[in-house]
C-alpha cells in the first residue's frame, strides 16, 4: 500500500465509474431503450482497475463479453462507450459493435469479444508483438471461469509459453459461467491457476474483491513479465453482482447470496474501509468523487440520448467492400 493519495483517488474513481456506469445501465436497460445483450461487470471492478492502473497505452488488453469494466479501466471514453451501448453513430464504434464489441486500439484496448475464449489467442499475438518491440510492454487477456474451458484458451496458454510471449492470462473466477457453477464445469474442481501452471507458467492468485490484493499481485506479475520471462497467469476470486446478462432471473444463486456478496465482497466498500481506516483518505474525499462520478455518468447518458442515430447508409461503411 505505497500508493500516493492521487493514485488512490484515481483507483477509486476508476472503480466507481465502472460501478455507476453499470448501475445506470441496469436501470436504463429496463426501459427497453437499450438494445442487445448486455453483460454487467459490477462486482469485479477491482480486477479491471487493479490490473489496468499498472498499464500504459503501449500495453494491450483483450477483453470478454463482459467488457465494460476492462474498457473503462483501460481508458476508453465514458461518453463514447455510453453512446456505443445506446447505439449512436457517435459511439466509440459508431453503433456497430455495441456492448460486446467495444474496442479502442489506440488506447491498447483490442476489443471486447462475444466469443468466449476468443481473446486469449489474440493476446498471445499482441504479447509476441510486445516482445518483438522490446520495450517491456505486455498484453493481457481477461478470461472467466467458463472461458478457461474453451480450447482456444488452452492453446493460447501453450502457445504463449512456447513463443515466450509477453502475455498475462488474468482469470476472473466469479464462480459462474452463465448459470453453471465453477465446481461443475472446471473438471479439476480446484482453482484455475493450477491448471494454468501445468502449462508451464508461473502463476499468482489474489482476491478480486480487494483492489489492493489485485494491485499488489499484479505488480509482481508485471515485473516478472516485463522483465522478459515469458508469460504468466493470475487468478482472482471475485463476484458478479448482477445476472449473467440483463434479464437473468438468477435462480442458481443461494439464499441471501446476492445480499452477502454486496455486503462483504464489494470492492468499493472494501476500498473505502481500508483507506479510511488507514487514514489515507477520508470519507469526504470519496464522497466528493462519488458525486462527481454520478454526474459524469448522468452526463454520458444525456449525451447518449441526444446523440445522432446511425442511418441505413452507415451499414455499408467500414468494410472494404459491401456487395
Amino acid at each position, binding site marked *: 500500500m505505497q500508493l500516493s493519495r492521487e493514485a488512490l483517488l484515481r483507483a477509486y474513481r476508476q472503480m466507481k465509474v465502472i460501478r455507476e456506469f453499470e448501475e445506470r445501465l441496469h436501470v436504463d436497460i429496463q426501459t427497453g431503450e437499450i*438494445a*442487445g*445483450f448486455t453483460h454487467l461487470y459490477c462486482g469485479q471492478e477491482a480486477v479491471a482497475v487493479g490490473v489496468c492502473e499498472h498499464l500504459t497505452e503501449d500495453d494491450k488488453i483483450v477483453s470478454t463479453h463482459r467488457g465494460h469494466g476492462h474498457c473503462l479501466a483501460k481508458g476508453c471514453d465514458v461518453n463514447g462507450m455510453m453512446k456505443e451501448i445506446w*447505439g*449512436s*453513430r457517435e*459511439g466509440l*464504434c459508431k*453503433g*456497430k*459493435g*455495441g456492448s*460486446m*464489441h467495444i474496442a479502442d486500439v489506440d488506447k491498447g484496448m483490442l476489443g471486447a*469479444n*462475444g*466469443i*468466449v*475464449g*476468443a481473446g486469449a489467442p489474440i493476446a498471445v499475438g499482441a504479447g509476441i508483438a510486445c516482445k518483438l518491440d522490446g520495450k517491456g510492454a505486455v498484453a493481457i487477456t481477461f478470461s472467466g471461469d*467458463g*472461458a478457461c*474451458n*474453451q*480450447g*482456444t484458451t488452452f492453446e493460447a496458454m501453450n502457445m504463449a509459453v512456447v513463443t515466450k510471449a509477453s502475455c498475462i492470462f488474468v482469470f476472473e473466477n466469479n464462480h*459462474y*459461467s*452463465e*448459470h*453453471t*457453477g*465453477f*465446481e*461443475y*464445469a*472446471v*473438471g479439476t474442481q480446484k482453482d484455475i491457476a493450477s491448471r494454468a501452471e501445468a502449462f508451464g507458467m508461473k502463476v499468482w492468485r489474489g482476491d478480486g474483491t480487494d483492489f489492493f490484493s489485485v494491485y499488489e499481485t499484479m505488480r509482481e506479475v508485471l515485473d516478472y513479465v516485463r522483465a522478459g520471462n515469458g508469460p504468466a497467469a493470475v487468478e482472482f476470486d471475485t463476484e458478479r453482482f448482477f445476472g449473467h446478462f440483463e434479464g*437473468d*432471473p*438468477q*435462480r*442458481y*444463486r*443461494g*439464499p441471501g*447470496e446476492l445480499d452477502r456478496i454486496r455486503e462483504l465482497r464489494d470492492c468499493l466498500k472494501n476500498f473505502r474501509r481500508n483507506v479510511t481506516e488507514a487514514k489515507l483518505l477520508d470519507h469526504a474525499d470519496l464522497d466528493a468523487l462519488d458525486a462527481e462520478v454520478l454526474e459524469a455518468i448522468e452526463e454520458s447518458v444525456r449525451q447518449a440520448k441526444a446523440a445522432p*442515430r*446511425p*442511418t*441505413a447508409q*452507415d*451499414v*455499408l461503411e467500414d*468494410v472494404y*467492400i*459491401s*456487395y
Partner: protein
Amino acid sequence: MTKMMYRDAVLTTIAEEMERDENVVVLGEDVVGGMGTPGGPEAIGGIWSTSTGLFGKFGAARVIDTPISESAIVGAAAGLALSGKRPVAELMFADFIGVSLDQIWNQIGKFRYMFGGKTKCPAVIRMAYGAGYNAAAQHSQAVHQMLTGMPGLKVVMPSTPADVKGLLRQAIRDDDPVIFLEHKALYGVTGDVPDDKDFTIPFGHARLSRAGEDVTIVSTGLLLGFCEAVADKLAAEGIGCDVIDLRTTSPIDEETILDSVEVTGRLVVVDEAPPRCSLASDICATVANKAFASLKAPPQAVNPPHTPVPFARELESAYLPSADKIEAAVRKVLSYR
C-alpha cells in the same frame, strides 16, 4: 392439434423422442442449467427454454450439461452417434460453429462417405441463428449457406411450430447427421402443432405457403413470414405469388421451385445470409440453369449486404431483408420487360 410456441415444439419433440427411444441423449451448455450452483440443477433450464424439465424427467445420464467447449460438444455427439446413441446437441448460438466447425464439417459430415458407407452418424446439432435481437456481429448470423455447401450434412430451417415438430422428429430419427437451425426470433411464435407422436416431415419437401401464378418467392425461417406478408399484400392488388418455404436447404426440393418458376417465369429468393456464395445465389443459379427457357425476368436475390451484422437498431433493420425490400424485389421482377 395443440397450439404451442416454436420453442415448446422443440422441447416437446425432444421429450417425446427421449421417451420413445432411450438412445436419445441431449447435451450442451446450460441445457440443464444450475449444475454446480447453490440453486441446483434446473435452476435455469437452457437459455432458450428448449430443454426445461428434461433433466428432471430423464436424469443426468441422458441430459448432459457441458463446459463451454463447443468442439467437444459436437465431438462428443459424434462419438455418441458412432456408438449407437442418438445425440441431440445444442450450440447456444449458430455463430459458435466457428469454434467447432471441424467436428461438424470434417467429422460428422464425412464419416459415412469416408468410411465407405458402412457407418451411421445419427447426430442432431441444434443451433439458434439469425438476427433481430441486436446481438451484433458475433451472435446474429445465419450460417445455413456454409453448412448447405458441406456434403454429408442435412440442413433444416423450420419456420413454424408445426414444422419444428415434424422436422425435428425426422432429424432425431434420421441416420444421417442433421443441422437443425432454429431462428431466435421465432422461438416465441405460436401455431397449431399435430399431436401425433409419429408425425414427421420428410426432408427435401418444400411447403407451398401461398399460391399464385405471377412470381415465385423462395425463403426459409424468419423471412418466410415477411414473404407471406408481401404475398398477401400483393394478392389484394391481384398479383399472385407462390411462396415456397424450403424447410430443408439440403436436401433441397428443386422440383417444387422449378415447377413453380415454369408457371410464373419470375423468381425472388429471400435469404438472411450475406449475398456471396449464398443460398439465394445457389437457387438463382439452379433456376437460371434448369428453367432458363421459362424465365421472363432475371432471377432476383434479396440478401443483407456483404457486411457483418451491425448492432444498433437502425443498422440491424437496415441490414436485414424487410417486407419492403422483398416487395420492391417482387415488383422489380414483375415490371421487367
